[in-house]
C-alpha cells in the first residue's frame, strides 16, 4: 500500500472510533474520515476506492450519512478485479436502496456479471440482485436469473432461486416464467438447492393462483415423497442440527405442503399420512425437533380438516406447554391462541397446563398464557378458573398484577353466574389488588350492589370485615365507605343475614370509627376522603346517637387546605346544625342505580363526548343525598305552603320550585333544557376531582342548554338565594328533585287524552334523519301540548350520542323529558322517543313554533342537524 497517501487504514479507523470516549469525539473522527474519503472521491482516486468504501460501510452502520459514496460503488462493481467487485457489491447492498435512481445505472454491470465466466462473480451479482432488485431491474434481468436456475454449480442455482423470489415479489406477472424451472428444482438432490427451490415454489404459490394450481396438481405428491425420504433418511452429518437431519428442509417442505393443502381437500388427503408421521415420530427433546413439530402443527391446523390430526397437533402443543424450555412454551401458547378458533374443545383440555403457565417465571409467557385463559373462559368453567387466578393474584409479581387484575375483573363481570358470586370475587380482588382496579370496575360493582337488594346486608358486612384487614387498597376502601354510608343501619342491625355468614357485631360507633379511620388514614386520597365525609353525613341520620361525634369529625375538616373537603365539611356541618329537621330526608338511601343506564353510560363515556348529558361515571358512587322535595323548598327559602308532591304537571312544579319569586324571564328556567342541565350540574358538583364551582354554578347550569336566554335568566337567580354558603348544596339539591320528578313522570302515564285526536306531523326530514311528532293534550289544560317526538335513522350507520335540543319563543314554555336512549339503530330499525311539553301562554292567539337542533355521532364523527318547525296542526289551539 502507498505509505505516503493520506488517510488511514481501515483497521486504524475502526480503532480510532473505538477509542472514542464520547459521541462528540466519535463524530469528530468520522467527520475527518468522511472528509478524506470525499477528497479521494473528488480526485477520482482509484487505488483506495476499495478501502474507502469499506470504511464507508462501517460508518454507515454507525448511522452517519454516506450517500456521497454511492457512485463509488458503481465504479467498483464495474472494475474487473474480484476484490473490488466484492466490496462494490457489499457496499451497494448497504448504501443504496431500491428507490434510488442511481440503482438503474447498475443494471448493466449486473447483467454482465450474471453472464460472467467466473461463477463466484455470478454469485456476487445474484446476491446483490436478490437483496436490492427493483421492479425495473426485475423485468430486465429475469431471463438471466431464469437461465441461472439451470446452472451447473449448485451454489449458483440456489442463489438464483432466491433471486427469483425477489423478482416475483417485485413483479408478480413474471411468476409464470419461473413455474417450470421451479418445479424442476423440487427434484434436486442437493439440500441447499432443494431448500431454496421449495421456498421459490412456496412464494410462487403465494403470488400466483395459476402457479398454486399447477403445483397442487403436479407436485403435491413429489413434495410429500421428498418429505418422506427426508424423514426416513439416514444420518447426514453436514445438515444435522442436534441429531435431526436438516430441520430447515423439513420446515420448508411442511410450509409448502401447508400452502398446497390449504382449502383443498384432495391435496390435504395426500399429505395426511406424512403429517401424522412427522407429528408422531419427530424427537421432541431438542429445539430443532420442536421446530419441526411446531411447523407440522401449523400445517395440520391450516390444511383441510381431518379431526384426528388436529387433536394430535393440539396434544403436541399441550406437551410443549410442559416443556422446560421457555421458547417452546412461548410458541405453544402463540399457536394455541390461533388454534382456539379452529378447535376450542381440544384446547380446553389443556386448560390446567395453560393455567400453570400463567404462573410462569417468564413475564412474556405469563402474559400470553393469561390472554389465552381469557379466551378460554366460559360460563361452565368460570368459577374454577377465577378461583385459580385469584389465588395466584395473592402471590403474583407487582408488574403482572395490573394485567391480571384487569383480566379477572372482566372475566368476573362477563361470566358471573350469580350476583353473590360476583360480589364475592370482586371483594377478593379488591382486597388483594384494589390499587390496580380501574375506576369503572368498582363503579360497576357498586351498581351491582345497589341492585342486589337481598345482598345489601351481606355485602356491607363483608366489606366491613375486609376493610379492617386491607385498608391500604384504595378502591376497596371506597366501595366499603360507600356501602357503609348507604347501608350503615343494615350493618348494625344485621339485617338479611345469610346462612353462610359468620355472625358479626358492629355497633353504631364502630361504623363511625371505621369511617373516621379511613378519613384520617394518610394513604386515603381526596376522593376517598370526600366519600367518607358523605358517608358520615349519611350515618348521622341513621345513627342519631352518634350524630354529635360525627359532627365533630366533619367539623375537623372545615379548615382543610383542600377546597373540596373544606366545602363539604362546612356545608354538611350547616346541614347538621341548622336543618336537623330535614337532614334525615336529605340523606335518604340512594335510589337504585340502573344497570342498563350505567352500561350505556360507560359505553358513552368511552366514546368520549363532551356534549352528552351524561356525567362522567365517577359521579355515581359518590353517595349523593337524595333530598326530598320539601327540604328543597326550605333550602331555597321559598314559600313552602304548596308541598309539591309528585304531580303530573312537572313543568309547572319546576317553575314553582325554582322560579317562584323570580322575574318573569326566569320562567324560562323551568322550560328548555332544565332537566338535562340539572343533571349535568348535579354530576359536576359531585364529581370530586373536578374544580368546585359553587358561586358560579348557576351559569354552569346553562352549559348544555341550547337557548342562550336561559343562562342570563339563571344568573339573576343567585342573589335571590339567601343561603350563600349553601348555594351549591341547594343547587344540587334543586337539581335532584327535578330528575326525580321527571322520573316519576315518565314512569306513570302522565297524560290522559281529552278525546281529541291530532294529526301527526313529520317535523323534520333530511336524507339521514326523520323526526315525527305525535300530539296529545291533558284534560283541562288546553294550553299545554304534549308532543311525542320519534326519531328515525334513515341511513345504514348507527348514530350514537344522540341529543335532541329545542328552543321556543318567549310566549311558549318548553319542557323536555329525558330521551328513551342515546343510540339510534341504523336503517329505521328502532327509534328514540322523547316527550316534549309545550305550554302556550298565548293560547288561541299564536301558533306553536319551535327550533330544533339534533347532534349525534356517526362512526365517531360529530354531526349536527338544525331546523325550524312551523307546521304544527292548527287544531292544537295555536
Amino acid at each position, binding site marked *: 500500500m*502507498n505509505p505516503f497517501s493520506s488517510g488511514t487504514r481501515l483497521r486504524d479507523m475502526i480503532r480510532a472510533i473505538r477509542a472514542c470516549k464520547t459521541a462528540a469525539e466519535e463524530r469528530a473522527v468520522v467527520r475527518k474520515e468522511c472528509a478524506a474519503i470525499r477528497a479521494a472521491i473528488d480526485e477520482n482516486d482509484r487505488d483506495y476506492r476499495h478501502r474507502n468504501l469499506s470504511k464507508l460501510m462501517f460508518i454507515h452502520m454507525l448511522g452517519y450519512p454516506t450517500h456521497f459514496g454511492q457512485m463509488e460503488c458503481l465504479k467498483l462493481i464495474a472494475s474487473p478485479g474480484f476484490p473490488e467487485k466484492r466490496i462494490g457489491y457489499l457496499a451497494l447492498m448497504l448504501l443504496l436502496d431500491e428507490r434510488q435512481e442511481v440503482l438503474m445505472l447498475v443494471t448493466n454491470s449486473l447483467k454482465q456479471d450474471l453472464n460472467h465466466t467466473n461463477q463466484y462473480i455470478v454469485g456476487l451479482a445474484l446476491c446483490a440482485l436478490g437483496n436490492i432488485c427493483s421492479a425495473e431491474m426485475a423485468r430486465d434481468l429475469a431471463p438471466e436469473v431464469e437461465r441461472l436456475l439451470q446452472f451447473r454449480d449448485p451454489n449458483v442455482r440456489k*442463489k438464483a432461486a432466491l433471486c427469483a423470489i425477489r423478482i416475483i415479489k417485485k413483479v408478480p406477472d413474471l411468476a409464470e416464467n419461473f413455474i417450470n424451472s421451479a418445479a424442476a428444482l423440487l427434484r434436486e438432490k442437493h439440500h*441447499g438447492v432443494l431448500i431454496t427451490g421449495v421456498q421459490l415454489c412456496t412464494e410462487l404459490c403465494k403470488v400466483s393462483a395459476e402457479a398454486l394450481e399447477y403445483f397442487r396438481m403436479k407436485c403435491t405428491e413429489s413434495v410429500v415423497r421428498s418429505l418422506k425420504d427426508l424423514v426416513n433418511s439416514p444420518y447426514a452429518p453436514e445438515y444435522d442440527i442436534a441429531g435431526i437431519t436438516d430441520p430447515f428442509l423439513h420446515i420448508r417442505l411442511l410450509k409448502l405442503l401447508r400452502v398446497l393443502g390449504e382449502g383443498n381437500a384432495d391435496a390435504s388427503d395426500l399429505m395426511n399420512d406424512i403429517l401424522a408421521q412427522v407429528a408422531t415420530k419427530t424427537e421432541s427433546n431438542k429445539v430443532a425437533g420442536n421446530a419441526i413439530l411446531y411447523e407440522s402443527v401449523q400445517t395440520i391446523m391450516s390444511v383441510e380438516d381431518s379431526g384426528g390430526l388436529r387433536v394430535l397437533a393440539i396434544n403436541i402443543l399441550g406437551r410443549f406447554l410442559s416443556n422446560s424450555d421457555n421458547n417452546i*412454551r*412461548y410458541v405453544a401458547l402463540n399457536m394455541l391462541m390461533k388454534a382456539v378458533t379452529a378447535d376450542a374443545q381440544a384446547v380446553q383440555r389443556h386448560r390446567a397446563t395453560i393455567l400453570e403457565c400463567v404462573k410462569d417465571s417468564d413475564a412474556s409467557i405469563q402474559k400470553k398464557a393469561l390472554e389465552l385463559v381469557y379466551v378460554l373462559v366460559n360460563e361452565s368453567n368460570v368459577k374454577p378458573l377465577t378461583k385459580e387466578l385469584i389465588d395466584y393474584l395473592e402471590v403474583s409479581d407487582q408488574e403482572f398484577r395490573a394485567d391480571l387484575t384487569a383480566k379477572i375483573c372482566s372475566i368476573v363481570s362477563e361470566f358471573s353466574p350469580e350476583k353473590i358470586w360476583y360480589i364475592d370475587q370482586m371483594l377478593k380482588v379488591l382486597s388483594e389488588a384494589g390499587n390496580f382496579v380501574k375506576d369503572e370496575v368498582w363503579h360497576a360493582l357498586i351498581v351491582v350492589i345497589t341492585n342486589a337488594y337481598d345482598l345489601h346486608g351481606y355485602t356491607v358486612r363483608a366489606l366491613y370485615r375486609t376493610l379492617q384487614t386491607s385498608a391500604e387498597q384504595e378502591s376497596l376502601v371506597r366501595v366499603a365507605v360507600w356501602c357503609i354510608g348507604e347501608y350503615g343501619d343494615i350493618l348494625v342491625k344485621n339485617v338479611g343475614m345469610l346462612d353462610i355468614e359468620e355472625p358479626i357485631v358492629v355497633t353504631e360507633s364502630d361504623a363511625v370509627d371505621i369511617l373516621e379511620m379511613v378519613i384520617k388514614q394518610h394513604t386515603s386520597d381526596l376522593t376517598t376522603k370526600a366519600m367518607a365525609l358523605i358517608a358520615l353525613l349519611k350515618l348521622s341520620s341513621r345513627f342519631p346517637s352518634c350524630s354529635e361525634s360525627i359532627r365533630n369529625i366533619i367539623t375537623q375538616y372545615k379548615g382543610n387546605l383542600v377546597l373540596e373537603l373544606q366545602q363539604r365539611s362546612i356545608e354538611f356541618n350547616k346541614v347538621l346544625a341548622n336543618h336537623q329537621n330535614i337532614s334525615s330526608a336529605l340523606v335518604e338511601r340512594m335510589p337504585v342505580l340502573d344497570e342498563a343506564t350505567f352500561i350505556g353510560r360507560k359505553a358513552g363515556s368511552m366514546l368520549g363526548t363532551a356534549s352528552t348529558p351524561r356525567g362522567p361515571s365517577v359521579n355515581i358512587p359518590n353517595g349523593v343525598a337524595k333530598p326530598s322535595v320539601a327540604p328543597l323548598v326550605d333550602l331555597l327559602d321559598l314559600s313552602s305552603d304548596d308541598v309539591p308532591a309528585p304531580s303530573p304537571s312537572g313543568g309547572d312544579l319546576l317553575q314553582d320550585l325554582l322560579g317562584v319569586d323570580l322575574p318573569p324571564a326566569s320562567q324560562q328556567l323551568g322550560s328548555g333544557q332544565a332537566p338535562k342541565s340539572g343533571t349535568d350540574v348535579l354530576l359536576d358538583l359531585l364529581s370530586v376531582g373536578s374544580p368546585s364551582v359553587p358561586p358560579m354554578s348557576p351559569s354552569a347550569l346553562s352549559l348544555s342548554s341550547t337557548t342562550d336566554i336561559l343562562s342570563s335568566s339563571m344568573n339573576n337567580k343567585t342573589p335571590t338565594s339567601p343561603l350563600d354558603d349553601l348555594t351549591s348544596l341547594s343547587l344540587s339539591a334543586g337539581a335532584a328533585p327535578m330528575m326525580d320528578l321527571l322520573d316519576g313522570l315518565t314512569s306513570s302515564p302522565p297524560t290522559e287524552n281529552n278525546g281529541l285526536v291530532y294529526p301527526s306531523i313529520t317535523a323534520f326530514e333530511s336524507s339521514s334523519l326523520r323526526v315525527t311528532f305525535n300530539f296529545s293534550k291533558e284534560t283541562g289544560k288546553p294550553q299545554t301540548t304534549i308532543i311525542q317526538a320519534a326519531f328515525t335513522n334513515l341511513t345504514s350507520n348507527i348514530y350514537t350520542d344522540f341529543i335532541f335540543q329545542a328552543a321556543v319563543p318567549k310566549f311558549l314554555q318548553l319542557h323536555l323529558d329525558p330521551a328513551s336512549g342515546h343510540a339510534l339503530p341504523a336503517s329505521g330499525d328502532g327509534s328514540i322517543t322523547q316527550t316534549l311539553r309545550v305550554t302556550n301562554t298565548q293560547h288561541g292567539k299564536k301558533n306553536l313554533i319551535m327550533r330544533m337542533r339534533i347532534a349525534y355521532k356517526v362512526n365517531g364523527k360529530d354531526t349536527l342537524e338544525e331546523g325550524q318547525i312551523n307546521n304544527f296542526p292548527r287544531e292544537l289551539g295555536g
Partner: protein
Amino acid sequence: MIKAVLVLNTQGKPRLAKFYEFRPVEKQQELIRNVFSVLCSRAENVSNFVDAESIYGQDARLVYKHFATLYFVFIFDSSENELAMLDLIQVFVETLDKCFRNVCELDVVYNYSKMHSILDEIIIGGQVLETSSTEVIKAIEELSRLEAASNSINLVPKSVSGWRAR
C-alpha cells in the same frame, strides 16, 4: 421473510446491521436503539422471543441470542418459524466461530466486510440460502482464495501506478 439481522454489543453499539427491507438510516439507528433497550431490560431466564410489533411494525417478531458481549438479533414476520430462526442464529454463530476460531467481539468489529460476506451466504433478500455451516465456510474460503489470488496479481502494478501518479 427475515426483515433484519442485527448484531449489537452489550453496550448497544451496532456491530452488524443488515436490513432486508428498505429503511432510511435514521430509522435504522432508531430501531437499533429500540431493540437494544428491549433486550438489555430482559432477564436471563426468559424466552428468546420478543413481540416486535411495537418496534418494527405489524407482524414483526424478534428472536435473539446472547453470546458473551454480543446480542444476535433476527427480526422476521409470521411466515417464518420462530424456533427455526433460533436455530438459524445458531448456524450463523457457529459459522463465525469456525471462520474466526472462537469468534469474539473484536473479530466482528475488524472483519466487518467478511461478516457481511458470511451473512450473504446464509441469507439473501430475507430468504434462507444455506443452513449448513460447512457449506457456508466452503463458499467463504473460495472467496478468500480468489481475493488473495487477485490481490497478489493486482497489487504490484497498482502501487506502481500509484507511485507514478504522485
